[in-house]
């Protein structure tokens, strides 16, 4: 069965084409603001402008014809409304044109499922950390439960916000990682509240230090502090659920120091650690197609409308 998946929750328009055992294509194009963060209208205008081109590209790359497609999947939640609508309209159009079923999937769960597929992990605790989302997710009692979460902003968003304050050009993450290599520690708040983390206070603290401390030192300290917080709550989830695998997902997974810290923690408690290839960590269409296919085969039907704020644990996981 061939499924085409369309991702458009934020700045990326991704199209993936997958079957049960192959990924035939995974192409994407991303909106990059010239200044500031993602402007919803500008982002969705951009996505609408390139949508049909990216879909065409994916179909060509997969070496199939449109008529070969059996199922159309799209990210229906959670995300920026303007952007979600672009993907859902594109998916509905395809579905009507090809006369094939349409299925809407949860973006966060798609990250988890593609991670399982690419790493072969069976039942991992997932540290999913991207721009908007930062959650520690594990499967229990028929659902993906959120065991730890940011109380305010996602780690990616936090890093981007700091980069903008410090005039570090886009994309901030890789540059901060580089500068951190030369930095020394300056004290920052360490904010773990039970199982949850909070980042806005750390951002404010960093802001006040910008005129006093060296930028390399701040980059180093923010990575060491925030990543330690993430690894700590991930370890708590591993202990609580008595699971033995940790999977890293989301754009922040690109960071080598975060990977190293996860690895150390897992080694110390005899757990396995893995990260899928980056193209499957960042927002991508293949993960939407993958989850759409799994849900369809489990007989799940979904609304064709979007849901900006659906939570990870609202979805019944009938395919596992």
């Amino acid at each position, binding site marked *: 069965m061939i499924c085409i998946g369309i991702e458009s929750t934020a700045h990326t328009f991704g199209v993936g084409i997958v079957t049960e055992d192959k990924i035939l294509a995974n192409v994407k194009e991303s909106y990059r603001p010239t200044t500031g963060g993602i402007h919803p209208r500008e982002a969705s205008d951009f996505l609408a402008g390139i949508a049909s081109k990216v879909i065409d590209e994916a179909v060509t790359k997969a070496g199939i014809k449109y008529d070969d497609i059996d199922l159309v999947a799209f990210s229906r939640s959670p995300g920026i409304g303007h952007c979600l609508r672009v993907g859902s309209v594109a998916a509905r159009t395809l579905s009507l044109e090809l006369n094939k079923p349409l299925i809407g999937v949860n973006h966060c769960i798609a990250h988890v499922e593609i991670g399982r597929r690419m790493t072969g992990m069976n039942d991992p605790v997932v540290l999913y950390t991207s721009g908007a989302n930062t959650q520690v997710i594990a499967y229990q009692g028929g659902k993906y439960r959120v065991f730890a979460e940011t109380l305010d902003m996602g780690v990616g968003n936090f890093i981007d916000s700091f980069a903008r304050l410090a005039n570090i050009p886009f994309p901030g993450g890789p540059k901060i990682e580089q500068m951190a290599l030369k930095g020394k520690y300056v004290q920052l708040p360490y904010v773990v509240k*039970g199982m949850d983390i909070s980042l806005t206070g750390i951002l404010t603290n960093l802001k006040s230090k910008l005129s006093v401390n060296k930028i390399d030192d701040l980059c180093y300290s923010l990575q060491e502090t925030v990543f330690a917080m993430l690894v700590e709550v991930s370890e708590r989830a*591993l202990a609580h659920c008595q699971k033995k695998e940790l999977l890293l997902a989301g754009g922040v997974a690109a960071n080598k120091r975060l990977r190293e810290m996860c690895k*150390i923690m897992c080694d110390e408690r005899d757990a396995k650690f893995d990260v899928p290839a980056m193209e499957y960590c960042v927002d991508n269409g293949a993960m939407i197609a993958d989850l759409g296919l799994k849900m369809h085969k489990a007989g799940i039907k979904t609304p064709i409308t979007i849901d900006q704020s659906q939570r990870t644990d*609202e979805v019944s996981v009938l395919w596992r």
Partner: protein
Amino acid sequence: MALKKSNKPLEKSTDYTLELIAQGAESKLYLVDGKIIKHRLKKSYRIKEIDEPLRKHRTKSEASMLRRASNLINVPKIISVTDDKITMEYIDAPVLRDIMSIVSSEVLSKVGKTVAKLHENNLIHGDLTTSNMLVKDNRVFLIDFGLAEVKDSFEAKAVDLHLLKQAIESKHYNEYTHAWSLIKASYEKNYSKGALVIDRLKLVETRGRYKSKSL
């Protein structure tokens, strides 16, 4: 923090023979000479500059919460505190989790009273589960104050109660209705503002986030 019974029988140190009795994400519990040592473990994924002050702060804070609580309810007595270890009295008793189905109504009421006394004094436990309660001679002892804090807030108290309710509902399905009604009644009876916290609890429960988050 969920403590898991360890099968590892003995760990040798230079001074004592330590028996590892439980291990969580953050610490190990040893039984030595009839006393419990709770050791907050070094985490090598954290740099020393963060790890050491953090463990020290948490150990001191836990000890201070335990001391505060000791004036209000039954807790293990503290014997000594260092930067990363708390030595305390060993209470040789089963955890409520393991005896929930045979426990008397009196004990369940005491659970409610114990939480009421804490909350009346603005102490939030932060991890109220049946694994963190010991039952000895019909008395309830509360343990693990690692997440405890002082907070004068109905919201914090309601969330604290919510954790307990969820823990009972998910782990002790058969006893849940009976047990929770006893605990709730006793909580309201022993804390003058208990009814207000229960009201707040209803609000907390309508939030999907809390509802589905803690299993």
